[in-house]
């Protein structure tokens, strides 16, 4: 199994190369409907999670809504 080094929310992660974004969120136990993802400074549209493949060196930001003023 080929592994890929990526950065998620500023932390280094090693994941299986070629994972789709849907599979990655599943592996992180996150509900795709409750988060938004930025990949290498570009928005990853939710409708494309199944077709976006994670590549080595990817920098992901996964965010959600929290309390704020």
């Amino acid at each position, binding site marked *: 199994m080929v592994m890929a080094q990526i950065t998620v929310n500023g932390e280094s992660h090693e994941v299986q190369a070629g994972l789709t974004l849907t599979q990655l969120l599943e592996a992180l136990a996150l509900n795709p409907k409750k988060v938004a993802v930025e990949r290498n400074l570009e928005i990853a549209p939710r409708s494309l999670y199944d077709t976006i493949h994670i590549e080595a060196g990817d920098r992901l930001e996964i965010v*959600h809504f*929290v309390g*704020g003023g």
Partner: protein
Amino acid sequence: MDASDVETVQGLPVDEPLVVAGRTLQSRLIIGTGKYQSYAQNARALEASGAEMITVAVRRVNLSDPNQERLVDHIDPEKYIFLPNTAGCFTGEDAVRTLRLAREAGGWTLVKLEVLSDPKHLYPDMEETLRAADMLIKEGFDVMVYCSDDPVYARKLEDVGCCAIMPLGAPIGSGLGIQNPVNIRLIKEAAKVPVIVDAGVGTASDASIAMELGCDGVLMNTAIAEAKDPIRMASAMKHAVIAGREAYLAGRMPKKRYADPSSPLAGLI
């Protein structure tokens, strides 16, 4: 707040509701969702406040504990209007990046822009705010903008297309009340879009003062969240906003320098 709260006196004309970017709000109170002891307490305060719109922040998910409580588990985005903010952003680019994520997370374009300067006073950087507002509006966002109480910048923000002007009453989280009522009134008189006092309210009378100046609404967070009893304070704020609005519509009596007896002088024994 529902319409019946306003129409308490028979025959009194019903006030027009607040409309922001095509969305109609019966309540003129908007509340933040930060600083509460829990999301459950936040949800109860929201209910007591009667507010229909809440501000929310966009932050990284906690990957080490994906099962921790979430805001949306307690406050339903289908029931309330979520207004994502750019709190913590110090440049226009930061704000645009944050709100693009918010749009993807929520699926809507109505946002609150705030571009801050110094953490000590959290005063908005108006030059950067104006630039960010322009960028966001060109990307199709409906921008409610947190700003200083400067009537000149308020007009510039309206000119670039902001859908609500939200001047501070006092520094964020300070609870000092409306520090510059003259400027707030000048901004309100000149604006064709809603003016909503955002930040600085400490207690119910501050909210009433903002509404008595003619503002279209009040946005607050800490005044409710850091009250000893946030639920009761949320209820107080609901009534204060209604009272201030009603007093504004009624038109207050002129101030006089000396006393003027309420009982007739004629017929004194």
